[in-house]
């Protein structure tokens, strides 16, 4: 039977009316590698419940934890075909949408958490707005930490690290590039193979955060931590912009507020965890290796060269880098005489 034009348009109108009713919740499907039961997942699930209650069921967050949706690039592919609407991702994985998202991870950029805080206070909002222009709404940055070289023998000089069999995360172009900048030939391995490779001597050095070293139990196979932060890294929770903007302004505000609060909490928690984990590593017998000033200078000269190349290649914009450097110089100058000196 042929449907009359009138009844078709009436049916469509009804359909759209129904769609706008509260009964039709917007479900945001969000992937993360965090395992169920982790502090991160508990915080995010609590935020999801809050959002559902505050929007009277109009917005729900459905999480896919434990990396079940695949690695960062698989997750981004699924977001593109609308199978997912968002994800918690490492900063670097979003470089194609906003290259400066990698700027915090330039080699040896930060010398302390105090420097991190000073720069992030000014620059986080730029990263968030850059990501928004790239099509993703981010609800903040959660610190992963500062990575340190951990090894079976003390490492104070670049040349000593070159002699080592150093792990690099497989498929992490930024990490591989950073190591090559120091003429280190890394051994790319999946995370799950690192512990056994340390045990068998296939590798004998890793660069990672104190939290990761303990969570993955790598600390049982290394004896020294070089007291020189090599790289800062972070994660962020993003929702695909069009999906987010399909919400009413009021619901957008509720979602933003709850997720921003949760992310700020995770950010602070990770800072405390990293500081506590650094102490725990020492309690477990790892020795902190102080780097003499002349050696530090050599590390920084090498890092500056690598950074210059990254900027010249356009991987991070000169503007963003210059602004970060200005803030760091400002902080370091104040630090020598003012109250901002810390860490």
């Amino acid at each position, binding site marked *: 039977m042929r449907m009359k034009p009138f009844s078709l348009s009436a049916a469509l109108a009804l359909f759209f009316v129904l769609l706008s009713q509260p009964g039709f919740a917007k479900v945001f499907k969000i992937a993360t*590698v*965090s*395992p*169920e039961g982790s502090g991160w997942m508990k915080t995010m699930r609590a935020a999801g419940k809050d959002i559902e209650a505050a929007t009277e069921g109009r917005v729900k967050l459905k999480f*896919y*934890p*434990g*990396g*079940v949706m695949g*690695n960062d690039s698989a997750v981004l592919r699924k977001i593109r075909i609308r199978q997912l609407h968002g994800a918690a991702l490492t900063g670097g994985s979003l470089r194609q949408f906003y290259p400066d998202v990698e700027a915090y991870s330039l080699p040896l950029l930060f010398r302390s958490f105090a420097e991190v805080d000073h720069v992030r206070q000014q620059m986080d909002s730029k990263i968030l707005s850059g990501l928004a222009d790239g099509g993703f709404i981010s609800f903040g940055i959660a610190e992963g930490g500062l990575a340190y070289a951990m090894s079976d023998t003390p490492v104070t000089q670049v040349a000593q690290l070159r002699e080592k069999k150093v792990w690099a995360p497989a498929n992490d172009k930024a990490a591989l590039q950073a190591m090559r900048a120091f003429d280190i030939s890394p051994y790319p391995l*999946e*995370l*799950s193979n*690192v*512990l056994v490779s340390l045990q068998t001597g296939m590798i004998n050095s890793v660069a990672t955060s*104190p*939290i990761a070293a*303990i*969570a*993955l*139990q790598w*600390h*049982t*196979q290394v004896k020294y931590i070089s007291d020189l932060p090599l790289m800062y890294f972070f994660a962020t929770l993003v929702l695909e912009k069009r999906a987010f903007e399909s919400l009413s302004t009021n619901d957008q505000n509720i979602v933003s507020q709850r997720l921003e609060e949760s992310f700020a909490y995770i950010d602070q928690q990770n800072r405390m*965890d990293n500081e*506590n*984990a650094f*102490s*725990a*590593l020492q*309690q*477990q*017998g790892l020795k902190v290796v102080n780097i003499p000033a002349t050696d530090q200078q050599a590390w920084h000269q090498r890092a500056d060269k690598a950074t210059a190349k990254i900027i010249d290649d356009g991987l991070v914009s000169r503007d963003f880098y210059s602004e970060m450097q200005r803030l760091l110089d400002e902080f370091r100058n104040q630090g020598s005489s003012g109250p901002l000196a810390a860490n």
Partner: protein
Amino acid sequence: MALTACSSLISSQTGKLADGLTNAVLNSEDLATVEQGAPAYLLLIDGLIESSPQDASLLTTGARLNGAYAAAFVEDDARKRAMNQKALNYAKAAACARNSSLCNVQTDDFQTLQKAVAEETAIEPLYVLGVAWLGWLQAHSDDWNAVAQLSRAKLCLDRVVDLDEAYDGGNAHLYLGGIATLLPPAMGGQPELGKQHFEAAIRLSDGKNLLAKVIYAQQYARLVFDQELHDRLLTEVLASNPQAPGLTLSNLAAQDQAQLLLDESAEYF
């Protein structure tokens, strides 16, 4: 000489009493009675240990009962931490009484401990130490210095599996499965290794260890997002008879947990 003979007799009798109490607790179907009654037994064991602080058998019993009671009944975090601390202290003392190379298990260099554990051939002290350590670790999971000891506890349980994987109905496999599935593969976890451990724990207990199925569902099936396996395992647990020698108490707790997990299934997957 007579005194030595007399104290051995007392030790042997208290050992039997302690074993009997442990069995009574672990085999009980009446959770409320155990919850209310067991603290008196725990005090009794504490008293006996105070009189014989080197008695490995009493120490082992004390470790097992404190750990089991904390896991089954204690909700309060501070109390849970205290009971697990006591369980670990007893387990460490039992291991030390048996082998002087195992007297500094928390502070020795990891490789030194690895060597000492690899040379130990007595299963029970290693097993009790590994289990008490994991209980302690779980109760202190917000302390990085505790989390850092996970590999040490794992060493003990790995050695138990090497010596006799069927010990205590293959329960060491259950704990090792739990460790392997703590993290997703993207973060260094090994779910497929965990799956092998869980299946070994189920096989070696003839399917009677219901907690093995519950943890298999909770840790593995949820991690790999396999709802069919998750729901099947939990449904089997709920349909099973919880009575089994040495397992009744934990099976009853496992059934409670299975119901909770099954109720959440639709929301999780």
